[in-house]
């Protein structure tokens, strides 16, 4: 590989970051050829500080420009580059190569449970449809106040955890119930409902609980904790779902 020779020289400088060769085993699908999805391996040179996304950039920019994946900010905030790396859902931009044992090929697949459009790009529409259904916006009654809607720090802390969601779909696409038929709302939608249900300024909790009380709502959660493990933001997703369940039961009885 041509790119390989250039970069190995720079790493010999004193104090330089060590570099190493890493193999990416990427699941590829090209809808234009209609061919079966296939595995393709690329070997690139990476530095000890590089993330999986850096290695993928190198492949795309220097080896095979047809490799397709989403990424926007590349710093773990936009939630575009969730993918299944070595069998776990992670953000490619937050996963360091050195943490993944680069001596073995690093397996990269699209997230499961959503239709693949091309390579690592999936159709997020079913995911966002569920998100829209829980009405992720402030719902209030009566006249709007002339100043800000004030909230105590304690009330703010009540739903702080679920405000961290970046809608990357790592949780929903790690959920075995969602894998079955894609009808389940999924953890991400419930997390974003939780963010408003437990907001003291919001008055739409009853409507949201009613939406989530559906046959495909929170009661399909089997508390397998896949979502909590997958969340790149460290949200306690399963706990949030359980809190929504509890709110529903206390409301019903």
């Amino acid at each position, binding site marked *: 590989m041509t790119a390989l020779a250039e970069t190995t020289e720079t790493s010999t400088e004193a104090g330089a970051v060590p570099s190493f060769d890493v193999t990416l085993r990427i699941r590829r*699908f090209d809808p234009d050829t209609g061919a079966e999805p296939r595995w393709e391996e690329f070997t690139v040179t990476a530095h000890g500080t590089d993330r999986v996304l850096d290695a993928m950039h190198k492949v795309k920019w220097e*080896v095979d420009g047809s490799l397709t994946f989403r990424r926007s900010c590349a710093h773990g905030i936009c939630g575009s580059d969730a993918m299944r790396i070595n069998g776990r859902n992670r953000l490619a931009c937050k996963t360091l190569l050195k943490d993944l044992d680069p001596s073995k090929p690093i397996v990269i697949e699209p997230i499961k449970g959503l239709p693949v459009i091309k390579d690592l790009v999936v159709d997020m529409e*079913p995911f966002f449809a569920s998100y829209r259904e829980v009405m992720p916006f402030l719902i209030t009654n009566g006249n709007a106040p002339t100043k800000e809607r004030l909230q105590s720090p304690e009330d703010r802390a009540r739903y702080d955890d679920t405000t961290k969601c970046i809608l990357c779909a790592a949780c929903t696409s790690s959920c075995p*119930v969602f894998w*079955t038929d894609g009808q389940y709302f999924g953890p991400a939608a419930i997390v974003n409902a939780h963010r408003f249900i437990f907001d003291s300024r919001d008055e739409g909790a009853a409507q949201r609980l009613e939406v989530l*009380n559906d046959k495909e709502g929170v009661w399909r959660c089997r508390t397998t904790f896949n979502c909590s493990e997958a969340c790149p933001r460290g949200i306690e997703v399963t706990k949030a779902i359980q809190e929504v369940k509890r709110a529903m*039961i206390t409301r019903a009885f």
Partner: protein
Amino acid sequence: MATTTPTGTLAAPRSARATRSRGSSRTNMEMVGWLFMRLSGVLLIVLIFGHLFVNLMVGEGINRIDFAFVGGKWADPFWQFWDLAMLWLAMIHGTNGMRTIINDYAERDRTRLVLKALLYLAFFVTVVLGTLVIFTFEPCPIGAPAELLPSFCPAP
């Protein structure tokens, strides 16, 4: 440098989620089912371990189980109620659990239907048979040797 190997088939695109039945739903069957699993689970722990303790450990323990012991127990309304509660709770708990698993894992509608029909049939047969046995059990069958029967049976 890129090695290509064909593998598997692409997951078929899935249908959009069916539109939900909107309407006032403070409770629904899924919630009742979820709650029932928790409550019946706690009750079943008490009932089953109580049953095991009384049958296997109290007094002479397992050695005393015979026709007379079972006949004696089912002549007592307390044990009739205990066993009936255990039968019904365990059967509904187990059937609901199996129903959930079928819903989660059987993808084709037809498979779901067949499996659930078999499940409900098994539930129905077991519950009806069990209930009948508990309530119509005859502790003193005519013509049986007296030493095998509970002590309260009239002498033949």
